[in-house]
Structure formats: C-alpha cells, structure tokens
C-alpha cells in the first residue's frame, strides 16, 4: 500500500529529519484554510565540509537494499552456487594433494575425507538419484506414450528419436562415449543443469584410495557439448521381470548446443558431419 502523499513525503524526508515537521508541512499544503503553498520547501541538505582527500581515497559504494533484491534471480543464484561448489571441490582436491605430499616418519592418519565432504558441502551422486528416477519416468512417457501393455508395438524409430531430441535432459544419467578431450572418456553422472554449451553432471565418488584426488571428491563436472558424444539408456515401459530390455541412445553434443528452452522449438537441420567429433 502506498502511504498518503508518499512522493512528497519522500522528497521532504531528505530535508527534514523529524517526521512531525513533514506532517505539518504537508498538512498546511493541502488545507483550505492554511497557507496552501503551491510549492514544497526544500532545504539544502547539510554537506560535509570538503576536506582535501588523498588521491587513493575512495568513497564506500552505497548499495541500495532494494536494488540488491531486484538483482537476485534464480539464474544468478544457481550461478553463484555452481561457482562455490567448484571452488570448494578445488580446495578439497588441493587439500588431499597436500596431504599426499606430506612425508612423516610416523604412519599417516587416514585422510578424513567423508567428514570434509560434509564440511565443504560437496554435492553427492546419491542426492541426485531421485531426480534420475523422475527423469526416467518422464522420458519413458515421452518416448513411448502409446504403450499400455507389453504386447503393444513400439513406435517407429524416427518418431522416438524426434521426441527425445527436444526432451529436457536434467536428471538423465549420461556417459561420455567419445570426445576430442580424452580425459572425459567414460565420465558418467546425472545431469544437474543443462546450459547452452555444457552439461553440468554430478559424478559418483571413487572410494578407491589410489584414485586421483578429483575422483575421490566427486561432485560436479562441467562437460562441454562440443565435439563430444553422450550416451544414455532408456528402459522400455511395462516390461515383465524376465523380459527386461532397454534401448541405448547417442546424443551428438555438437548438434545440441542450445539451451533446453530453445531446443523445444528449434528446427534442426543436417549439416556437414566433420565437426561432430
């Protein structure tokens, strides 16, 4: 709700510190019997006497709370979150490396990894498993909506593929099948967020002590889509226990470098295949 005469009040609050004075002024402005001044009396605010400031002096920047509030949105929050996760992962990896470099005469105590993972708030693969289950249901109902019983015929190949091309992939369990970057081969995890040029996936922790520190920590990986092939499996719906079958699909990373939102309406075209891998 707007206060009465809010604008004037706001202007006057710059000149007069006490509220009563402002009220009185406004009162006289809007009465029939009073002064009925058509203008507002604005007094010059007190300014500090300008001192000679040093060259290096800088004014503290004034951040309006309102402005700050307006600037926060989901996208920015997510961005800062991903940044902090990455920072924490890196510092934990560095900690492990430092620990491995230590040379003590007495046998080393085992590194308190599980404790530190909680402390650094590193996301775990298990946290995203429910999301993966949700995605599987979604993808099944998207790809094979016609199938109600196991006897029903599967839809045509092109139809399934066309439906999955415009699907949403956050929650999908992806494996890197092939890439120009050999370090990415075999990387496997659940998609947390699908940006325009990367898949952010959450990988499982490697419990093995001989694994590299980064593998021991797990957490998020930022996998570029360009020059990379991803694969995922999709179970067929309404299968019996004995006859449990699935289909594999390959996502061609160089061709899905759009945001998920834009992809749903995009018209795909075949291009020169030389930049696929």
């Amino acid at each position, binding site marked *: 709700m707007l206060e009465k005469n809010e604008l004037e009040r706001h202007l006057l609050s710059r000149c007069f510190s006490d509220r009563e004075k402002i009220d009185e002024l406004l009162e006289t402005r809007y009465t029939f019997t009073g002064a009925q001044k058509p203008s507002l009396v604005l007094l010059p605010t007190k300014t500090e006497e300008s001192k000679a400031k040093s060259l290096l002096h800088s004014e503290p920047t004034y951040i309006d709370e309102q402005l700050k509030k307006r600037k926060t949105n989901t996208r920015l929050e997510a961005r800062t979150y991903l940044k902090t996760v990455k920072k924490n992962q890196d510092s934990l990896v560095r900690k492990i490396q430092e620990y491995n470099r230590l040379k003590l005469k007495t046998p080393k105590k085992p590194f308190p990894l599980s404790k530190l993972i909680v402390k650094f708030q590193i996301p775990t693969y298990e946290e995203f498993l429910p999301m993966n289950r949700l995605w599987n249901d979604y993808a099944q109902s998207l790809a094979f909506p016609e199938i109600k019983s196991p006897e029903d015929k*599967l839809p*045509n*190949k*092109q139809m*399934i*593929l*066309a439906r*999955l*091309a415009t699907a949403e992939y956050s929650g999908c369990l992806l*494996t890197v*099948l*092939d890439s120009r970057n*050999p370090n990415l*081969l*075999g990387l*496997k995890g659940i998609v947390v967020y699908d940006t325009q040029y990367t898949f952010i996936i959450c990988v499982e922790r490697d419990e093995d002590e001989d694994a590299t520190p980064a593998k021991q920590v797990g957490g998020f990986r930022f996998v570029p889509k360009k020059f990379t*092939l991803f*694969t995922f*499996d999709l*179970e*067929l719906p309404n299968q019996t226990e004995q006859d*449990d*079958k*699935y*289909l*594999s*699909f*390959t*996502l*061609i990373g160089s*061709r*899905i470098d759009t945001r998920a939102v834009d992809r749903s309406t995009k018209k*795909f*075209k*075949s*291009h*020169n*295949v*030389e930049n*696929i891998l």
Partner: protein
Amino acid sequence: MYDLNVPWPRNNYEKLTDEQVVGLRNVIVTLYSLKVYKVAINFEIDESIRLPVNSPQEINPIKVPEIIDVAKFPGLSVYTRLTVVVNDSSKLVSFNKFQNYFDLVAIKPVSEKALQLSIINLNIDLISVALSSRLNFYLKHKIVGQAIKKGVKFEICYDSLISSSSSMSRKHLISNLIQLIRATRSNGVVIAGGCTDAINVRSLNNIVNFFETLGLKRNKINQFIENSRYVLMNGRLRINSYKQVIALDDDDELLDNSKDDPMGNSVVNGYKKQKRKGDADEQTVKRTKI
C-alpha cells in the same frame, strides 16, 4: 580402411547369377585381406529405371547375408549404396522416398545443370563424376565448393586406371582427375575402388604411390581416404538419427549397421538390449578408446 565402391554386377533389378555372386564375394574378401574393413556395395541405376516403391523390401536388391557371411570376417561391415545417374534432376521427385533403404546415396551427374541442381535440392552423401570418359562440362569451383561446404564429397575410382585397356580412357581419367582436384582445391575428395574384378584391387600403399605420381601430397591422400569415414557417417546418421541430433545405439563411431532391420523398416527391435540380472553395474563398465 574404407572402400565405398564395390560395384553391384547389375544395373537393374534382375537377379544375380551364381557366377556374379562369387565374383562380388571375391572382391570383398580380397579387400578384407588388404585390411579394408568398411565396404559399400554400389548399386548403380539410371534415373529412368522405376523403383518398386510399392513393395519396400524390394527397393534395395542388395541382401548382404546372401552374398557374404559377415560373422566369419571379424571387423568387416558391409554397407549398401545407391548411385543414380542424373541427367535431369527434375525427374528425381521420389528420391527422398528410397533414401532410408540404402546406407549411402550418391549421384552421377551427366551435365553441369544436373550437378548444380542435385547439390542444391537433394540430400546426398557422395557425388561420383564419370571420370573415365570425356567430361562434357567444366567443373566449376563455385558449384563444387558449394557441395563441399554441405559435406558432400566427390569420389575418385582407381579401377578404370588399372583395368582399362585403351589408352584413351586412361588419358581422360588423368585429365579429369586433375580437373576435379583443381575444382575441389584438394578438399572433399574420396578415394574408392570401383573394382569389378578382384585382381584390380589395390592396397593402401599402392594407392598412395599412384596419387603421389599425380603430384598430390601424401597427407592430402591420407585425408582423401579418411574422408570416406565422414561420408559413411553422414549416410548412417541420415537413417539412424533425428537430424543428426540424437541417434539410436551407443556406437562411438556412429557407423554400425548390423542392427538395422533387413527389410528397411524403421523399427527398433534390433536395437533392444537385454539387461543382465543381478548385475546392475554391467552398464558402468568403463569405455576406453583403443
């Protein structure tokens, strides 16, 4: 290694004689022994021949299991290719209908107009220019470059160079080859065999040697041979993917055609995989590149 042109002995829909089947098999086996593992059988027809559109299983006459048992040759995969001799590309209205029945689709333009129009209008993988006779048109870089930009490659067959008895055709071949290499600026060319007889099949070293005498650099020749992979990938993705975005199956080369329906229907039954019981981690076996 690849060979995208092993000619099908007939140019129409008649059945092969036993002799022809043996001849074809011999070529493939010879290629295999020379470490050419990806082979495409080329069915070349004239544009005037009508395709049996109404009976889909007859559109592709090449039934690979009848010719060769692929299981006996580990690593071998046999693809099918259709080449249409184009004179007037407006006749090819039904071209898109039979694209799904062949792994590769190529054209053989007879005139400059046919070449230009089919580059613009048709969705093809390969262009095969008749090199062993006199070309009745000039290959322009502008048109050829348009094709290469789209990812369509040009084919060179070394067969007529070896087998042809007349010196005229050899002369034409060499001059046409130089024309083609000039027009393509040594990009987007594919070297294929085109051998009807097993005796004309050559190994990689021989091919490289020959093209070196024509003045090509060795790395360019290797690139020409490597280009075959892109042609195959393009063809396979047309059948096996939705606009090159998502493909069926998890083959990291995107070239596997063993699971396709032999009748050419786009059903997914061949791609189903059985999940192993009590072994949920089966899928998590790490893939490593050789």
